[in-house]
């Protein structure tokens, strides 16, 4: 716990988290002040949440890991287990970056528009922060080379926010003669960005616009079971890369 506290305050004092906080606050503030309509504000913020939040989280976490390599090595010389160091780093980083997001975006949004969509946006954004920090740790542990590590995390970000959706769209097109709805649900579950996007949009216009041909999606993802499903998926998505990275880190020859 002491370790978490120490890393956390170190992070909060660093300029980066502060700038990130300001940037998000600026976005949220402009959206709320300049747009007159709730759903427009929420949609603009959704774009920020599925693009900017993962990008910043993944890059910052990777850089942070490499920058604290020496600090970690010093710590390892002390009687502290690797697991504990790793968990502390992760928790502190999640608290700092995720906290910045919640303070700058989540809270103002909930104050101005207290509804289910705002809450889901906040939950989705926070989970995406954690997930992409975990992915960043995974790629940072994967290679010792800083440039390679950052490259790898960038590729991961690009994959989850762009390439993956392109592939799903292509698949839907090529197999549009077949009933692939259920497969698409599974595929969407395999991408945390899609999970949070669909989770939010199902509470907005998507469920009506899917119509009857998209009934599989609406019935499953649009229901309260779907909501629980999405959140469970997001939790799994935060845990799995984290433990994978932790296992790697524990065995790694530093």
């Amino acid at each position, binding site marked *: 716990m002491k370790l978490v506290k120490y890393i956390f305050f170190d992070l909060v004092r660093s300029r980066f988290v502060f700038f990130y906080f300001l940037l998000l606050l600026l976005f949220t503030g402009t959206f709320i002040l300049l747009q007159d*309509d709730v*759903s*427009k504000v929420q*949609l603009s913020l*959704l*774009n920020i949440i*599925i*693009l900017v939040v993962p990008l910043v989280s993944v890059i910052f976490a990777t850089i942070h890991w490499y920058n604290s390599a020496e600090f970690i090595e010093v710590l390892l010389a002390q009687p502290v287990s690797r697991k504990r160091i790793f968990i502390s780093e992760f928790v502190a980083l999640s608290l700092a970056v995720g906290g910045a997001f919640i303070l700058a975006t989540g809270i103002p949004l909930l104050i101005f528009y207290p509804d289910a969509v705002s809450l889901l946006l906040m939950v989705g954004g926070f989970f995406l922060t954690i997930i992409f920090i975990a992915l960043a740790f995974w790629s940072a542990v994967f290679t010792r080379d800083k440039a390679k590590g950052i490259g790898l995390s960038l590729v991961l970000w690009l994959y989850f*926010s*762009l*390439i993956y*959706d*392109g592939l*799903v*769209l292509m698949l*839907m*097109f090529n197999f*549009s003669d077949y009933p*692939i*709805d259920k497969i*698409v649900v599974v595929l*969407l579950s395999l991408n945390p*960005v*899609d999970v949070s*996007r*669909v989770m939010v*949009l199902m509470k907005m*216009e*998507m*469920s*009506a*616009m*899917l*119509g*009857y*041909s*998209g*009934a*599989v*999606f*609406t019935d499953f*993802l649009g229901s309260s079971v779907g909501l629980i499903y999405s959140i469970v998926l997001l939790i799994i998505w935060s845990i799995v890369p984290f433990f994978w990275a932790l296992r790697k880190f524990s065995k790694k020859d530093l």
Partner: protein
Amino acid sequence: MVKIRKTVLAVAFLLTLFSFHIEAKQILVSKNGNGISSLKTALTKVSAGDTIIISEGIYPEHGILIHIPVTIIGKNFPVIDGEAKGQIFYIDTSLVTITGLIIQNTGFSSMDDVAGIRTQHVSHITISGNKFLNCCYAIFLAASNHCIIQNNFIKGNPANQQLAGNGIHCWQSINCDINHNEITGQRDGIYFEFVQGSTISDNHSYENMRYGLHFMFNDNNRFVKNYFENNGSGVAVMFSKNITMLNNTYRDNWGASAYGLLLKEINDSYVLYNHFEKNTAAVYMEGCNRIVFSRNDFIQNGWAIRVQASCMNNTIAFNNFSGNTFDIATNGSLSLNIYSGNYWEQYEGYDLNKNGIGDIPFRPVSVFSMFSENMPESMVMMRSFCVTLLDKIEKVIPGVIPEDLIDNSPMMKKINNAYPGSGT
């Protein structure tokens, strides 16, 4: 000369005699003793042109047949209660007026269309200022011409979804005027079939199970300044020509198969000064030709206009499109409709010569709306970064979207589409 004078005198004398004879009488129907206590009995004592005044109270009657032209006036809303036993009024003769009644509980039947007031093969019926509560059909006009239905309040019973009928049902009639009615909780708020030359105006039709207005095979009609809100499937206008839709509001018709205005096989019609807000699809067009859409506002709809490829020679000009997920969607690669001078909120062009018209054309169809039109399930990918990127690329280099679907003179500023003379 004298002869003529005599004839005139004789005729005048006869006329005075006659007029004495037909002087309309008033008959009072009342529950407290000073009159006849039953409407049915009163109707047996009337002659043409008489007035029946019903005073306050509950009259449990049904199957009231009116076959003499009379005026029925309710004082302080007397209640004619059908007690779920069947039809309440059946009007079998022209020139009948019914006003100021509460007509309730017709009962529901899957065999007959039971109505609060039914008219058949008559003309010049006026039904005004009544309240219809829990009726299967409230007003059922069959082959009834020159009827005026106004200021009625109609509230159905949404619990009875299977057997519910329509609020104002108008079949094979000419020159009817339906205005200032409030209709809710029925199957269709207003139902028109084979009706000609009629006007539907200033009605408020909301929260009906199916359509706010259901309109089939009616030529030469107008609907003006109606308010259609939150109906199961919005408004459907089908198989008609020469329809004018003016200054109506369609809003909150939201759901998997809800449309603000569904147009199917409509020709030579006008859709002007309407306001479409928060509908899944504000306008859905199929097989429509030569319709002019002008000065309409499309605000925050899922789709503003879904034009199927079977539509041609329609003009969409001087409308405002703002906050819609998709402005225009179509399912074909050929566009035979004209889009010009609209304000598109999604337009990102510039106006160097400051004439209020954007210098670069606008393509209102996004590639993703094309995808989803052909494959509705792909809607699940909406607003993903990949889709946004695809749309941007396609706007610059069109490949999938119809090349001709283009607004060459998009407006830079929102057009003021307030109806002339409406003040706002």
